[in-house]
């Protein structure tokens, strides 16, 4: 357990010292969303009707972009070998790295989300639901993404392959995330979609680290 938190703290420190990585993810998120008003026109009614979906898709893509860094740096400098050889189960260490990744790259996106909701003319009543649904749903993105990142670690041009492997698996998160938000915007109860989103996150929390650990062992052979 101690090692777990040490690893989380180490990855957070690394991300903080490199500085730019969290910021770049948020910058991508903001720019990607602000492209849409140019594409579909500034009409607030249109923006509000597609805003929830666009924010979620941009969050998905921002997560995807950051994923290839999840194991790559450790793979290159050899610390991944140490992690695999460590007495602690690799599954727990994968979990720690994924948690740190979520804290350093996805949490900033959630904090930036209300700003984008304002850009997309979403009603103020939807802001809370946007943040709650992202808080509940994005862990699934990180965990499933970890499997893809582990499968493509050490590959040249792994990023394109990663998107092909992972994006189809993200579709349920997108559906339920936007579903919860859409229900809230219509003044309905979005809790059923939110619960399904939570269930998906929890299942991926349990199963995905197993796959990611197996894939990492394979990559280091």
């Amino acid at each position, binding site marked *: 357990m101690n090692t777990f938190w040490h690893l989380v703290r180490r990855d957070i420190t690394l991300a903080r010292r490199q500085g730019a990585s969290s910021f770049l993810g948020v910058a991508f998120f903001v720019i990607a969303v602000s492209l849409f008003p140019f594409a579909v026109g500034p009409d607030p009614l249109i923006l509000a009707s597609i805003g929830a979906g666009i924010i979620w898709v941009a969050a998905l893509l921002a997560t995807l972009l950051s994923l290839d860094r999840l194991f790559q740096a450790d793979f290159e400098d050899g610390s991944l070998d140490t992690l695999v050889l460590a007495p602690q189960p690799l599954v727990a260490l994968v979990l720690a790295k994924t948690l740190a990744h979520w804290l350093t790259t996805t949490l900033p996106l959630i904090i930036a989300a209300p700003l984008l909701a304002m850009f997309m003319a979403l009603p103020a009543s939807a802001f809370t639901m946007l943040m709650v649904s992202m808080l509940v749903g994005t862990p699934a993105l990180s965990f*499933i993404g970890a*499997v893809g990142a582990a*499968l*493509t670690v050490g*590959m040249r041009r*792994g990023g394109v*392959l990663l998107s*092909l*492997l992972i*994006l*189809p*698996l993200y*579709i*349920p998160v997108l*559906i*339920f995330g936007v*579903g919860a938000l*859409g229900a809230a915007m219509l003044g309905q109860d979005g809790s059923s979609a939110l619960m*399904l989103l939570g269930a*998906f996150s929890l299942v991926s929390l349990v*199963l*995905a680290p197993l*796959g990611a650990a*197996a*894939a990492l062992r*394979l990559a280091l*052979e």
Partner: protein
Amino acid sequence: MPRLHRFANPMRFARLSKAVLPWMAVLTILLIGTGLYWALLASPADYQQKDSVRIMYVHVPAAWMGLFIYVSMAVSSAAGLIWRHPLADIAAKSCAPIGAGFTLVALVTGALWGQPMWGTWWVWDGRLTSMLILLFLYLGYMALWQAYDEPGKASRAAAILALVGVINVPIIHFSVEWWNTLHQPASVFKVGGPSIDPSMLWPLLVMALGFTTYFVVVLLWRMRAEILARRIHVLMMQQAAS
């Protein structure tokens, strides 16, 4: 299980598959021939959809096969991962293009059927959409095989992906259906109605059986080709070394 392991020997597989293949091929031709005649000529046209209902006899079995082959691929992948049988890995690898082909056939025939029935080539209907996602999963799986140089490593990486995928297939399927019913009523897809007359059900089942034997034939063919390709590769390596 040990009884099953006997068939995992590539040499024994090569002999057995060679003996079985011609019979399976003949059976496939008979089944699909009968099925096509029955479906296209002998079965009645739908009172509402007229003759375009006959697309169903290709469309529905192809969609079934797309899903069935994905599950077969995942089962072989699990066997390959657990017992490290190269033959199971080869089976999984050989499944993917066939399954992707059937999924594509289901999508294309679905579009051809949708044009006269719904007036549009594509509808974001729940079942159509989940077939499209299934095609993406197949493509990702095949791309992962391509990305590795060593077949041993590629097979295990692809097996992990296939297992992650097979857990997700039902989740994706149900979430897409849920999403669809949220946006539009399900009345669109009830064209044929859920109950089907025996005069249509039987040709459909014959076609499905024919598609299954076709899958077995092509799978055995692909597996034999893959085994031979690996043997050639080994021989060439030996030649280069000596």
